[in-house]
């Protein structure tokens, strides 16, 4: 039994779980990690800094691709403070889909930066809310200042076929990246 994974990243409310759910054979499940951060104040001279914990939740779905191959899709929050989880998450991943809401483009900057510096294959999918794509893809590409080699496409996170097409683009891009580095 073999399993592979794809990461779906994006800002708050951009439709990550909807995207995952549109193609998953199960209702997306939620797994949680407990993060402990030591918060040290400027004047804190004690050696026992206050510890605060944050629970980071990831929704994920599952797609059986053939009798011995399962694909997991992990939706993950895009903010910097969750990067500690991403190091773990991107290990061995096929790649990532960065979901973008053009009304809140800046929300996707951290994910784009992270995947670029990690060398993880990724594509950008602009989620059209109600089929509305107010910005040309080229404008989005420029605004995100990503290389023209990074595929960028429109998608409807609610639509199974759209999600399928997005995932296929990512896998093709990941293959192209591997072949080009040989």
């Amino acid at each position, binding site marked *: *039994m073999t*399993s592979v994974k794809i990461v779906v990243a994006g800002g708050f409310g951009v439709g990550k779980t909807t995207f995952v759910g549109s193609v998953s054979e199960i209702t*997306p499940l939620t797994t*949680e990690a407990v993060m402990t951060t030591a918060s040290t104040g400027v004047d804190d001279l004690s050696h026992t800094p206050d510890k605060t914990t944050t629970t980071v939740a990831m929704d994920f779905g599952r797609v059986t691709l053939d009798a011995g191959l*399962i694909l997991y899709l992990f939706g993950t929050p895009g903010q910097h403070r969750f990067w500690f989880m991403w190091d773990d998450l991107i290990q061995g991943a*096929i790649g990532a889909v960065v979901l973008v809401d053009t009304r809140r483009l800046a929300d996707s900057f951290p994910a784009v930066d992270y995947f670029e510096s990690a060398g993880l294959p990724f594509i950008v999918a602009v989620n059209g809310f109600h089929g509305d794509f107010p910005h040309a893809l080229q404008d989005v590409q420029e605004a995100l200042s990503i290389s023209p080699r990074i595929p960028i496409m429109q998608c409807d996170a609610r639509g199974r076929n759209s999600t399928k097409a997005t995932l296929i683009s990512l896998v093709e891009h990941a293959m192209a990246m591997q072949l080009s580095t040989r």
Partner: protein
Amino acid sequence: MFGVGRDDWDAGDPLYPAARDDFGVPGYGFAPQGPSGPVNGDPRLHDPGQRGGAEEAATLVRPYAVTGGRTKPRYQLQIEAMVAASHYEARDLSVLSPECQAILNFCRDWRSVAEISAVLRMPLGVARVLIADMAMEGLVRVHQIDHAEGRPDINLLERVLSGLRKL
């Protein structure tokens, strides 16, 4: 907090048949005990990762009590690693902790570490420690790809692509 989503998978999901009977260990689960009750009851209404704060602080110690306080698994387990119960012969499973019994019950078919964590309502870190222990003891089999180059190889990607196209 650790209980979100339970009603979702229990709602006649064919992948998890009779799940509640199997895992309804009395007193089992990591949900915080408090007057506030479950938070974020429906994960679909909330973006993941927005929870946190004082409420979790009270439960910091508790999840790792079942691992004897250990937070590092005995070997590295990917979140998508597949786990299945070994074919054990007449082994007395009653000596196992309720958590390990629940994992064995759930893993009669191949399940990922993520699924075990989500469905059995264990924080990911706890699930990893327990599963790694169980694998070392031969209770479960684990399949994960050893990504020598860090990424799935081209043959595997071909297979993924063809599977996606057939969906």
